[in-house]
C-alpha cells in the first residue's frame, strides 16, 4: 500500500522535558537556597524535598505559594539556511503552584499532603501568520503535571526519621507542529492532545548528628503515564485542486485517537546540612534524575495517518544530575536572608537537541528573604537561570545552530502554623 510511506513525516515533537524542565522550585524558601533542602527539610515543603523532614513540624501547618517562571529561548540558524538567522521563542510566563499541609498526629508520627508540579513547561515558536524556520519540528508544545502526594513520617529514634508517600499524578500534554506532504509539496498542521493519570511513590530519610549536622536522602519513583485516550488533529489548507484536496483528506484524518506512553524519570537525592552557628547554616545537595527512561517517543493512531498507525522517534536521553548549594543567615527573629547556587547537567545528547527542548548545562543563582511574624511566614525568592549556549553541529534532524536560554523565576510562599 502506498500509504505506508509517510512514516517519517509525522513524528510528533518531543515532550518538553529534561533536567532543566523538571521544575524543582516547589517552595520559595528552598528555591532561595538553590533547592538545597533535602537535609534541612524543616518547613511543609519538605513533603516535596524530603518527606522525612515533616516529622520536625508540630501541630497543623499549611503553606501555599507559586513560582512564576519566565523563560526566554532563542535559536540561531539553521546553518543549512543562514547560520546567523535569529529566532526568539515566544515569551510565556508559567505559574506552577504548590500547597502543603502537615499535621503532627503524635510526637513521633506526622502526616502530610503536597500538591505540586515537578515536571512541565512549554515552548512556542513562531505564529500562524509568521511561521518560523523550525515549523516542521515544533510550533508549540506544552506539558503540565500535577502531583497529589499524601505522606506519612515517623521519628524512628531521636535522630532518625523516615517517611513514605504515594502520588497520584495528573498530566496534560499538547503538541503542535507543521507537517509536509511531500508528493504535493503541501504544508499542513498537526495537533496532539492527551491527558492521563499515573501513580508514583516517594520515600525519605533524615538523620541528625550532634544536633547540628543533618543528613537527608530522598527517592521519588518514576511515573508511567499512559496516554490512552489522546486526540490527534490534522489540518491542511484547501487548495484550488480538488484532486489534492481529496487526496489529503483521505490520507489525513481530521481527527483521530492517539495513544502514547511517557515515563517521568525517577529522582534520587542526597543532602548534607550544617548549622555553623545558631543563625548561619549551609546545605549541599546532589540530585540525580533517571532521564534514560525517555529513550523514544511512540505514538499510535486509531486511524492511519499518512498511511501509518504508529510513529516512533528516538530520544535517547541520558541521566543527569544537579549540584545544589544554599546558605541561610538569620538577621533577627523576623528576617532571614538566603542565597544559593546550583548547576544542572544536561539530559539531552547533542544530536537530539531540538527546539522543543532547547536544553543545556545551566548555572543558577538564587537569592531570597524570609519574614516571620507569630504564626505567619512569608518567603520570597528570585532565581536566575543562565544556560550555556549550545552549538549543535550534528543534529539528527539536520537542524543545526545555536541555542541560547535564560529564565527568571520568582517565588512567593505564605505559611501559617495553627
Amino acid at each position, binding site marked *: 500500500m502506498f500509504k505506508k510511506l*509517510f512514516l517519517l513525516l509525522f513524528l510528533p515533537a518531543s515532550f518538553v522535558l529534561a533536567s532543566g524542565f523538571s521544575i524543582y522550585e516547589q517552595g520559595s524558601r528552598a528555591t532561595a537556597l538553590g533547592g538545597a533542602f533535602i537535609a534541612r527539610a524543616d518547613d511543609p515543603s519538605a513533603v516535596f524535598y524530603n518527606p522525612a523532614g515533616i516529622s520536625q513540624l508540630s501541630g497543623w501547618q499549611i503553606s501555599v505559594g507559586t513560582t512564576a517562571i519566565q523563560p526566554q529561548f532563542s535559536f540561531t540558524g539553521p546553518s543549512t539556511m543562514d547560520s546567523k538567522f535569529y529566532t526568539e521563542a515566544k515569551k510565556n510566563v508559567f505559574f506552577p503552584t504548590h500547597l502543603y499541609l502537615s499535621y503532627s498526629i503524635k510526637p513521633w508520627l506526622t502526616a502530610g499532603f503536597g500538591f505540586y508540579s515537578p515536571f512541565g513547561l512549554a515552548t512556542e515558536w513562531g505564529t500562524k501568520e509568521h511561521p518560523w524556520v523550525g515549523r516542521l519540528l515544533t510550533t508549540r508544545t506544552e506539558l503540565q503535571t500535577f502531583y497529589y502526594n499524601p505522606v506519612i513520617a515517623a521519628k524512628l529514634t531521636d535522630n532518625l526519621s523516615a517517611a513514605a508517600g504515594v502520588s497520584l499524578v495528573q498530566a496534560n500534554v499538547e503538541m503542535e507542529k507543521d507537517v509536509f506532504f511531500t508528493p504535493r509539496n503541501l504544508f499542513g498542521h498537526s495537533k496532539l492532545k492527551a491527558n492521563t493519570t499515573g501513580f508514583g511513590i516517594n520515600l525519605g530519610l533524615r538523620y541528625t548528628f550532634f544536633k547540628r549536622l543533618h543528613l537527608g536522602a530522598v527517592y521519588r519513583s518514576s511515573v508511567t503515564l499512559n496516554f490512552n485516550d489522546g486526540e490527534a488533529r490534522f489540518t491542511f489548507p484547501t487548495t484550488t485542486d480538488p484532486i489534492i484536496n481529496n487526496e489529503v483528506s483521505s490520507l489525513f484524518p481530521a481527527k483521530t485517537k492517539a495513544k502514547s506512553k511517557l515515563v517521568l524519570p525517577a529522582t534520587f537525592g542526597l543532602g548534607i546540612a550544617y548549622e555553623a552557628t545558631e543563625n548561619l547554616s549551609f546545605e549541599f545537595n546532589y540530585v540525580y534524575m533517571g532521564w534514560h527512561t525517555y529513550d523514544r517517543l511512540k505514538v499510535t493512531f486509531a486511524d492511519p495517518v499518512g498511511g501509518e498507525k504508529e510513529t516512533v522517534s528516538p530520544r535517547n536521553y541520558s541521566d543527569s544530575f544537579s549540584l545544589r548549594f544554599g546558605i541561610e543567615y538569620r538577621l533577627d527573629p523576623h528576617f532571614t536572608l538566603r542565597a544559593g547556587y546550583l548547576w544542572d547537567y544536561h539530559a539531552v545528547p547533542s544530536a537530539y537537541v531540538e527546539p522543543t527542548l532547547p536544553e543545556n548545562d545551566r548555572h543558577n543563582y538564587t537569592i531570597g528573604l524570609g519574614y516571620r511574624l507569630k504564626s505567619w511566614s512569608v518567603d520570597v525568592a528570585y532565581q536566575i537561570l543562565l544556560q550555556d549556549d549550545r552549538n549543535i553541529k550534528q543534529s539528527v534532524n539536520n537542524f543545526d545552530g545555536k541555542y541560547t536560554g535564560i529564565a527568571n523565576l520568582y517565588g512567593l510562599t505564605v505559611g501559617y502554623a495553627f
Partner: protein
Amino acid sequence: MKILKIFLVLILFSFFIAGCKLEEPSIKKSNPVQLNQPAQELFMSFVALGNSLTAGYQSAALTAKYQEYSFVKQIAKQAGLSDDQFTQPLLGWPGLGAYTEKGAGILQFNGFDENGNPKIDPVPYAGTGFDPFNPFLNAEVAGLGRPYNNLGIPGIVLADVDSAISSAQSYSGSGLIDVVLRNPAFGNTTALQQALSLQPKLVSLWIGNNDVLGYATSGGTYPPAPTDKNTFAYLYNSLLQKLLNAGTKVVLANIPDVTNVPFFTTVPYMVEVQGNNIPLWIQATDGVRQATAEDLILLTAKSYIGDVSGTYGPADVPLGLDKSAPLPSAFVLDKQEKAIARQAVADFNAVISDLAANSGGKVALVDINALLVDASDEDGYPLAGVTLTTNFLSGGIFSLDGVHPTNLGYALIANEFITSINETFGANVPMIDLLQFLEEQQPLKLNLQKIAKLPNMLTIPEIFGGKINL
C-alpha cells in the same frame, strides 16, 4: 542594621521588577553575499554539458516549468546570473519526453484511485497547442543567436558530447540533440564545440550516466552491455583535456549507483497472491527462475505483472506468476546484470575521481553517488523536520519517472555542486536555502479544466508493498 535590612529588601525587590533578559545578537540575519573575485570570474561565462540530469529533465519529459529548476540553472541563479546570462532551450508544456504507448508528454500525479494506488498519467499533447516539431517555449528561445548555456541533452552518452551533431549522427540517437544543438544552423557543431564557443570560465560536466543507465533501465537488453571501461576512460579523459586546454575550470559529478534509484527499487520481487508472498518468475541471465531479493524488478514491469493478454507470454497465464510466463528480461535487472551495472558505475567513478584528483586544482568533483547512498538509508536525508528519502513518489527527491530528481532533488544536487565549487576554487556562491525552497514549492493554482480533460490512461497498480489485486 535596620538600614541594611531595608537595603537588602530593595535589592531583592529590584530583581523582581527587572529580571534578566536574553542577550540578543546585533546581527539577526546574514547580509546578502557579495560574490568574491574567484566566484565572479567563474560565473562570467558558465556553461553546462551533460545529459538529462543537466538538462533539467523531470517526470519523463523536458519542459520549461521544470527546466527552471535544472540544477545548473539553480546554481546560476545562486551566482546571480539572469535568464539572459544563463540561457536554456526552454520547451513548452507538456514538453518532449515520454512517448509511451499510452500517450506523450510529462507524467502527472493525479491522486489516488479507490484502492489508494497512485494514478500517474502522461499529459497528452492534444488540446495543449504543443507542437513536437517546434517544441520551444517561444520564438525568442528558439531563435537565440548563440548556443545555449545549458547544453545538457537528455539521452546522450559520453561519446556524443564530442561527436554528435544531430540525432541521426550520434551514438545514442537521442531526438533532443537536434533541439538543443540546432544544427545545421550552428554549423554542425558538437555540444563540446558549442560550449567552447561561449568561452566558458566554468563548465559543469555530468556525463556517463547513460553509459550504464541505458543498459540497466532496459534490464540489460539494450544496449546489451555498459560502455567498456577503457573506452569510457579514454573518452572522458580526452573530453576533459579539451575543456582544460581551452582554459576553463570544470566541475564534474560522478554517477549514482543504480541500486539507490527508485526505478530499480520500488517494485518488490514478491507479490501477494491470496495472502501468500510469492516470488515472481523472471527471465534471468541464468534462465527462467523465481526472483530473489538480489534481483531488481524495474518500475516499468509494474503495469505488466499479472497481464494475461498474451502479448508478453502465453495468453491467459498471468505474467510473472507462472513458470510458463516469466517477466521478460527487459523488465528485470537480475543479480548478474546488477553486478555488471554496479561494476560499471564503480569503474566509471574511479576514472572520474582519478582525473579530478590529477587536474592540478582546475577540476572540482561532486560525489552525487554519496549523496544518494546517504539518502537511501533508513534515516533518509533529514531536513529540519521533514525526511527526504529515495522512495518513489513519497521520498521528495525523485520525480514520477523514478530516475530523474524533483525540483527539490535538483536543489540538493545544486547545493552539492556549489559546495564543491566553493571549496575547490575558493568561491563563495551562497547555498540554496532549502527551507525557503519548500515554502516556494506550495501547489500552484492548477487549471481545473485541463485536469478534467485528462483521460486516465495509465494507472500503475499497487506499485507499493508487494500487493497485486488479481
